[in-house]
């Protein structure tokens, strides 16, 4: 066993072949996701979230670098992961019941029929209904039933809740988190709606322009930042610290900083919300990246054999 769910080392993916200039969906992407985390992957549209998840699901081969999942190459861990792509691919000609049967047939020995059935029946879905006749939210429910029924050790969900109404979202998220807590499942959920998943997650990866801009336990990330408010020249007072963003507000100047020591007197400091941190980083694309120690690739463990024994 390994205590690392996903580890990416200098992961890069370029679409469209080397002849096309640019085209990097991911570039120099390195992080470590500890097992049993509930991780939110956030970032604007086109940041590389889906590409990152597809690599972890073993559907894409990196152009450069490596990605290791549950201590092994993604192709060796299919049984232990579940993946729900953003468009919730399902076979339209199957019924709901047949789709769950597919989960049983393709995952013998792992399939939890009663869990999958419960998720479907909680949504008042007719098992005889064809997938093509379902609404987007109902399809999401079936896709999640298929993923959770597999009892994965790592659950990869790409924009899982986008099609759901608030009630269904709350109820499905509750089921999801309860199952994850019970089984010790690592959950990775991507979203471009900031803060949508924040309350459910304890780990965060902020992806921007194909790179990890912030990575770590949410508590650690919040603790690493301070919201300071005060009057006076910004540069002098905040010189020792890393200033992510500063704005003029009614009372003077508000800045989000990563303190490198005590903040100069005369400045009010407050703990920022996660949303403050995310918005500040999104508005300041040039801010330096931050990976907390728990999210950092451990030296030597990017090697696959080391990760297996570790």
């Amino acid at each position: 066993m390994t205590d690392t769910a996903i580890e990416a080392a200098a992961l890069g993916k370029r679409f469209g072949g080397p002849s096309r200039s640019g085209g990097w969906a991911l570039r120099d992407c390195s992080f470590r996701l500890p097992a049993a985390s509930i991780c939110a992957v956030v970032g604007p549209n086109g940041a590389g979230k889906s590409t990152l998840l597809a690599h972890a699901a073993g559907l894409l081969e990196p152009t450069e670098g490596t990605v290791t999942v549950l201590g092994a190459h993604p192709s060796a861990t299919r049984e232990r992961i579940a993946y729900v792509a953003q468009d919730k691919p399902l076979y339209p000609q199957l019924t709901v019941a047949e789709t769950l049967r597919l989960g049983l047939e393709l995952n013998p020995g792992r399939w939890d029929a009663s869990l999958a059935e419960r998720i479907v029946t909680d949504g008042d879905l007719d098992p005889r209904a064809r997938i093509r006749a379902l609404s987007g939210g109902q399809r999401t429910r079936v896709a999640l039933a298929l993923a959770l029924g597999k009892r994965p050790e790592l659950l990869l969900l790409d924009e899982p809740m986008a099609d759901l109404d608030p009630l269904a979202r709350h109820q499905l998220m509750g089921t999801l988190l309860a199952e994850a807590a019970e089984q010790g499942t690592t959950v990775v959920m991507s979203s471009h709606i900031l803060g949508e998943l924040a309350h459910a997650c304890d780990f965060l990866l902020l992806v921007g322009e194909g790179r990890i801009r912030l990575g770590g336990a949410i508590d650690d990330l919040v603790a690493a930042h301070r919201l300071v408010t005060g009057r006076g020249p910004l540069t002098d007072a905040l010189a020792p610290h890393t200033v992510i963003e500063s704005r003029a507000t009614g009372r003077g100047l508000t800045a989000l900083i990563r303190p490198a020591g005590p903040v100069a007197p005369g400045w009010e400091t407050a703990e920022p919300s996660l949303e403050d941190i995310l918005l500040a980083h999104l508005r300041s694309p040039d801010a330096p990246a931050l990976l907390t120690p728990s999210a950092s690739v451990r030296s030597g463990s990017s090697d696959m054999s080391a990760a297996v024994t570790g």
Partner: protein
Amino acid sequence: MSASATLRRTSGGRLRGPYWTTVRLHRPILWTGLALVIAAAAVAVFLRVSAAAFPEKQWNCIGACPDTFLGFASASVLLETFADFFAVALLFLPLLIGAVVAGPMIARELESGTYRLAWTQSASPARWLATKLAVAAIAATALVLPLVGIFQFLRAPFTGPVNRGWVQRGVFEAYGPVLIAYSLLAVAIGALVGLLVRRTLPAMAIAGVVSLSMPMAVGTVRWDVFPVRTVTGEGSGLFVGAGRAVDIGRDSFLMQSGYVTASGERLPYNACWRRTRDMETCPADLNITSWYIDFHPHSHFWWVTFAETAIMLALAAAAAWAAFRLLRRSAV
């Protein structure tokens, strides 16, 4: 029925794992194939029974012959016409099989994105492809075999002790092994094209055309490529009386006959007739030293059948291997 009971009810059946999935996903196509066989069998039985029940009465009528059977001179003529048509129709089975495998079975999964569902289950992408190939190969064989049997049933009244038409396109293939080999090749071509093109309709078109072109191209050169048996004789006596010097047998297939000159050059069978208007009299200046007859005896039927079947199965294996290689490059 409660929802939960319905969910459990679907767990019947004997197929398991990816085989259940593949058969269930392509059930309409499999039913269509079965319906095709049943329809062909029904028509064949109807025609055979009709031909037996309404024997020809006026095959040698002079002037306007009254139509006797569904617009044909007789039920027997209709049966023979249909059998000829059926032989050609059988050659289009590889087109059908290649198109179905390439489009609905493979490319549609890649086009619609359901491959991301299939490839992230416990069964690997290689197993996904292997199962599709196996189901398609079994279904293709199960489609071709009865149709070949129906064809033999259709033409049975017209084949006596002499095996008529065994060299003909369609008839030759419809003895079974060759057509099955072409159908299995179409399965492999379909898989390769489907993975390569990744879009349903273009994949169907390309795989169908390629699969059809194989039997069409080979059928054109088959008897020229396979070594002929040759009989020769001294002198210019290729023709004796009304026929050739040697009777090669009525069920042999004459490829070429003619004369050989002193310089070793081969002359056509009518080289003497063109000069003398007499088959048996040859001008001396042609310097004919011997004659020859190139032909395929009926025994070549099985040799060509085995050779062609083996070559097509080897090509099918190569195409399937290429498909797995391609899959390994596109999947991780």
